[in-house]
């Protein structure tokens, strides 16, 4: 076994998961609160301070972390202790593990694991999040929790189908499901000026993918499993860090959706109209990684904007949208893509 390889892989994992994903997730909790405050004409949280430094409320995620760690994590009577402990861990771990195949830059040095079947890995491991919802709600021995878990499980499996089918069109156009190959394929220009991004060749696929993945993340307008204000959701009985883990998972998943969408539909680390020849190699690599991170942040912002703009669906509207609108549309998208590819 190559110990050097394993050490470098471990280092990459820590940089991506801890430095990038969890940090960005924590900052996003602050962005969400401040942005919703701006939209609703409020100030939002800005009081946490160390000494005289307030930093526009940026210290609130840190204060939240200390608070979550030092609260009591009780287990309600009659709950299944094992599943109650494992449910939040399954939700967070399955979301974090998906980042293994995301290419952050050119070449395989900037991917933790350059799998040929990268997208399939994300679909497979990402689906484990359903266990976090279903087991968490069922194990807590609470009627509201069970209701949220059932609704959550039905919603997640319904939109999972659409999410998988929408990627089929992209696979057909680029002829690969390796994420690094997908990014390389998007580097070309159509007709000499239009970047051949996934969103250009599969516009319907992108819109459907964004809707389906936001429903997968259980955020408004699809937040029926939790429904903060009226319905009590699958984590009704979860306290302290157990609740905070579900909360953090939601924000990590925002980053994951943004990273997948940036890779598959927005050209990954490719900078369009930029000729790599003539620029020193190191600078161009840094610029490409920076541009990829910029795309991720922009797509995170888009998801936040949608979440605070739209009201929640009713449950039958949600299931109708998933099965009667999105599923036929994504099948039609595949058919049209297949015919266009056969004609060209």
């Amino acid at each position, binding site marked *: 076994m190559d110990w050097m390889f394993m050490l470098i892989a471990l280092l*990459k994992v820590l940089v991506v998961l801890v430095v990038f994903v969890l940090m960005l997730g924590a900052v996003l909790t602050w962005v969400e609160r401040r942005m919703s405050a701006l939209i609703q004409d409020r100030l939002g949280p800005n009081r946490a301070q160390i000494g005289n430094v307030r930093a526009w409320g940026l210290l609130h995620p840190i204060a939240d972390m200390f608070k979550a760690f030092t609260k009591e994590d009780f287990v309600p009577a009659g709950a299944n202790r094992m599943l109650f402990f494992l449910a939040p861990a399954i939700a967070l771990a399955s979301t974090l593990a998906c980042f293994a195949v995301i290419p952050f830059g050119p070449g395989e040095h900037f991917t933790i694991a350059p799998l040929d079947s990268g997208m399939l890995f994300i679909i497979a491991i990402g689906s484990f999040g359903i266990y976090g919802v279903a087991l968490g709600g069922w194990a807590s021995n609470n*009627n509201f929790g069970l209701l949220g878990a059932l609704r959550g499980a039905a919603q997640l499996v319904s939109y999972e189908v659409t999410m998988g089918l929408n990627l089929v069109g992209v696979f057909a156009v680029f002829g*690969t499901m390796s994420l690094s190959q997908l990014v390389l394929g998007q580097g070309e220009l159509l007709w000499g000026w239009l970047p051949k991004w996934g969103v250009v060749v599969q516009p319907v696929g992108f819109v459907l993918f964004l809707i389906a993945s936001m429903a997968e993340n259980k955020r408004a307008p699809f937040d029926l499993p939790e429904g903060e204000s009226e319905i009590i959701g699958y984590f009704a009985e979860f306290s302290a860090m157990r609740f905070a883990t579900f909360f953090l998972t939601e924000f990590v998943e925002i980053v994951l959706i943004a990273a997948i969408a940036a890779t598959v539909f927005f050209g990954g680390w490719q900078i369009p109209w930029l000729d790599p020849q003539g620029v020193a190699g190191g600078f161009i690599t840094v610029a490409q990684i920076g541009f990829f991170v910029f795309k991720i942040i922009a797509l995170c912002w888009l998801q936040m904007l949608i979440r605070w703009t739209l009201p929640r669906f009713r449950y*039958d509207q949600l299931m109708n949208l998933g099965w009667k609108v999105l599923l036929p549309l994504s099948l039609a998208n595949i058919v049209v893509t*297949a015919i266009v590819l056969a004609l060209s």
Partner: protein
Amino acid sequence: MGSEFLPYVAIIITIVVAVGIALAILVLNAVLGPKRPSEAKMGPFECGSDVVDTPRKRINVRFYAVAIFFVVFDIEALFLIPIAVAYRDLLQPQHLGVFALFALLLFIGVLAIGLWYVWGKGALDWAFDALTSSAARSDANE
């Protein structure tokens, strides 16, 4: 071990670290947090009212039906992905040519008929009105 397995070693490292992070923060909370159980705190949370029912009971069969449909259509997606990846090659005249398109359309068509059938049967309806009205219709027919 050949170098083609190295990405899978990296995958295992990622999964171990991800599970480690998730378990570590939960265990750290269990160590740092206080333990002050009381009867009211341990009871099921139902907005302050007394519990009248247990959640360990039968659930609506519609959730089961959705799970079955999910299995069918997700396996469809799973079969479509390899076809999609190889589609451009299959379209070459020396492989399948335009027959690849017809094979794909036939496969999607069979499943579209399945979707049309469950749709027509009302298995995808969730609204209270739709449920009661379809029940009323079948009563009237009998």
